[in-house]
């Protein structure tokens, strides 16, 4: 990209932010040491699974600690050790069944719910496509920013009416959003902590994720995969808008994009024909 194009892009970004119908509010700070607030329809599934497994783990860990403490305090030097190789059928049976029971409860629970959650929510792309109002967005990750591409009024990607934004991701509430992700340089990972999802951006291939916002507000987009010196600055913002606000922004952004479209600027046409992956 030539420097003049950078300047143009900067001006456009400025134009976007000043004239957008909804002011670019700062995300709300979090507090405490639990998960950041959940803005997604499906995030609670992950939260619950982590929390319940954490409860299991804490119980097991406490039992282990008590066991060790009792052994150390009760069976110290004064205690005469018991001669037991633990290789009787009975003790083997006990050890093996205990392991199996813990496995079936803790890991079994994890596996069951993980598969269920993936099939019903996080991998249920068919359901997302089936929703009439679903939104498709293409993302180009590069050092150290996120480009977003909306298909525009014609619903076809990489055409003149596409909306292209920098680090500014706007989505309507209660709408399945399907994103496809590419990278032009190194690996990145598109992470939405408030939506409990992330997906790597891999040069040479297109990856996907989908989510659905359940409340309006502004949240951080984070890069989760080390991508070089300024990895820590690869931050974007996702704004969840009401349908009316989103439509207003969409009309406005379409006009700006039409003005900004430059058929000769090949590097600006990084989009691709959308195909179901």
């Amino acid at each position, binding site marked *: 990209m030539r420097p003049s194009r950078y300047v143009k892009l900067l001006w456009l970004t400025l134009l976007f932010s000043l004239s957008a119908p909804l002011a670019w509010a*700062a995300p709300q700070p*979090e507090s*405490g*040491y639990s*998960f950041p607030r959940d803005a997604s329809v499906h995030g609670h599934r*992950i939260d619950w*699974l*982590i929390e319940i*497994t954490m409860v299991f*783990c804490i119980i097991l860990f406490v039992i*282990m*600690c008590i*066991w*060790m403490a009792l*052994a*150390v305090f009760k*069976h*110290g030097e004064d205690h*005469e*050790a*018991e*001669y*037991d*190789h*633990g*290789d009787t059928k009975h*003790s083997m049976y006990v*050890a093996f069944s*205990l*392991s*199996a029971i813990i*496995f079936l409860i803790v*890991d079994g629970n994890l*596996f069951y719910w*993980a598969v269920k959650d*993936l099939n019903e929510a996080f991998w249920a792309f068919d359901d997302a496509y089936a929703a009439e109002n679903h939104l498709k967005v293409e993302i*180009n990750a590069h050092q150290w920013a996120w480009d977003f591409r909306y298909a525009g009024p014609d619903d076809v990607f990489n055409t003149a009416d596409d909306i292209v934004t920098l680090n500014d991701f706007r989505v309507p509430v209660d709408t399945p959003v399907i994103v496809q992700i590419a*990278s*032009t*340089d*190194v690996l990145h*990972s598109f992470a939405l902590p408030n939506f409990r*999802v*992330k*997906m*790597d951006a*891999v*040069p*040479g*291939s297109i*990856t996907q994720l989908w989510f659905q916002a359940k409340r309006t507000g502004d*949240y*951080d987009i*984070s890069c*989760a995969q*080390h991508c*070089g*010196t300024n*990895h*820590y600055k690869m931050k974007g913002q996702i704004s969840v808008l009401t349908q009316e606000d989103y439509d207003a922004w969409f009309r406005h952004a379409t006009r700006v994009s039409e003005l900004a479209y430059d058929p000769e600027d090949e590097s600006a046409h990084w989009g691709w024909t959308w195909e179901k992956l």
Partner: protein
Amino acid sequence: MDLQPIHPDPTNFWKKYVFSTDHKVIARQFLWTGLLFLALGGFLAMVIRYQWAFPDSRAIGPAEYASTFTMHGLIMIFWAITPALIGCFGNLTIPLMIGARDMAFPLLNMLSYWTFFLSAVLIIASFMVELGAAAAGWTTYPPLSTQVGTPGWGQSLVVLAIFVTGSATIMGSVNYVTTVIRLRAPGMTWGRMPLTVWGLWLTAILNVLFVPVLAAGGLLLLLDRHFGTEFFIAGAAATTGAGDPILFQHLFWIFGHPEVYILILPAWGIMGDLLSFFSRKPAYWYKGQVWAMVAVTVLSAIVYGHHMFTTGMNPLLGQTFMLLTLIISVPAELLFLNWLHTIWKGSIRLTTPMLFFLGAVFVFGLGGLTGIFLGTISTDLYLHDTMFVVGHFHFTMAAASLLATFAGIYYWFPKMYGRMMSETLGKWHFWISTVTITLVFTGQMVVGYAGQHRRLYDPYQYTFTAHLDDMNFWTSIAAFAMAAGQIPFVLNWFSSMVAGRKAEANPWQVGTLEWTVPSPPPHHNFDVLPVVVRGPHEYANPDVRAALGRDWIGQTEDLPERDPASGGTAVEAASA
């Protein structure tokens, strides 16, 4: 006996201390090098913690920061834990514990150390070149690790160093595998081998199988960096190659997942033995522990995909890897139950090594349990690449392996140097280290649970983690305390080496073979090769107590009297 002639002692200084083929000298060389790199890696860790505690100080810039965490990870794994835990204890204990006069290939053993030394020179050199050392993370993912992301010689030298140290590891491991198979003393059946040797042997097998994969990946990466190939550079919009960066991740993790077990299996083995020795009680279900370790070894080879859940992996493949990963909890739980049963109803001696082993069980409990969140695809969607991951693998690979390494040092120091280490300083070292190490990695898990991603120069840039600065600050304080807590160890190490109490042959009163020879052992270890008659864990045996008046019996010792009434002794029944 032709296999193991008695070589004459070396007389020349160079052959005795530098280019020695004696496994005991090589063990000490690995230990010294490992401890020096532990100090360097620890220093780098403190730099990272300083940055997170004082992000506005700008003591280092983001580029130096990326180098720091990259080199911290690589140095700790390949140049600190590997030489100390595998290089030192493997060399020291395998021949002594199985009753051999040396390794199967003493010359290869020497070459292994000096190849490793060359890699150490390369890694140090990488700090001194223009643009600094490697900065693509210890995982060295391309394209970042190609010239696209990290130009300069630093990254190349580091990849080369990994390749060279990998060669050293393969030499050592071939030696371990062969020695255990070929040079066990008469009577040292597989079922009588100390668990320490089992752990080290299984580790060596994993090394022989999987380090070459890493070496291949590293070599291809070097070709990409300097010879214009494009194995890992993909054809995206901005580039024109036809390779695949994900291919490197497969190669890396085919090695990388076994690697985490490579670093913990020796510790598990040593723990299985020593929890028994210091509880004065037989190891609980010896065969179960062996099979559990074998099962983990096998499973470790087929679960690596859980590191790549977020790369857009095929769902069926992902679910398969998830199931296999979770299955590892079965043998791991079995091991835990066996350790807990081993110390139950024992007669526990809280010596420094025992304390460190109990500490290792404690932190490994934390590390092991938190792994299941990351082996599950849906929970990993949120936790992947967060500090939760960092806390988890530090609890297993760093905390558990490190505490076990320290335990091993305190335990075998008398055998290596002929002197005892100070128990007082050792206990100070234990309490400070274990408490602070737990705090540090718990702090990491807490901020990770709250969403903080790893490898961030300034984590407070993000709104959702801006409030975590306090927790990170206190975690850093705990880390600095942990570093300070190593002072008693350094004092202990040097003062004991010079002025420690002289160690007798068997200061801990245990029955494995290394304690039947003087401390330190002669060059050829055993004047007469021992004949083994029983397993390594014969403690609290009432017959032994009646016959010998002590609670243990060596692996080579016969009971002087038999009890005709029961048709033999309980010892024989147990070792049968």
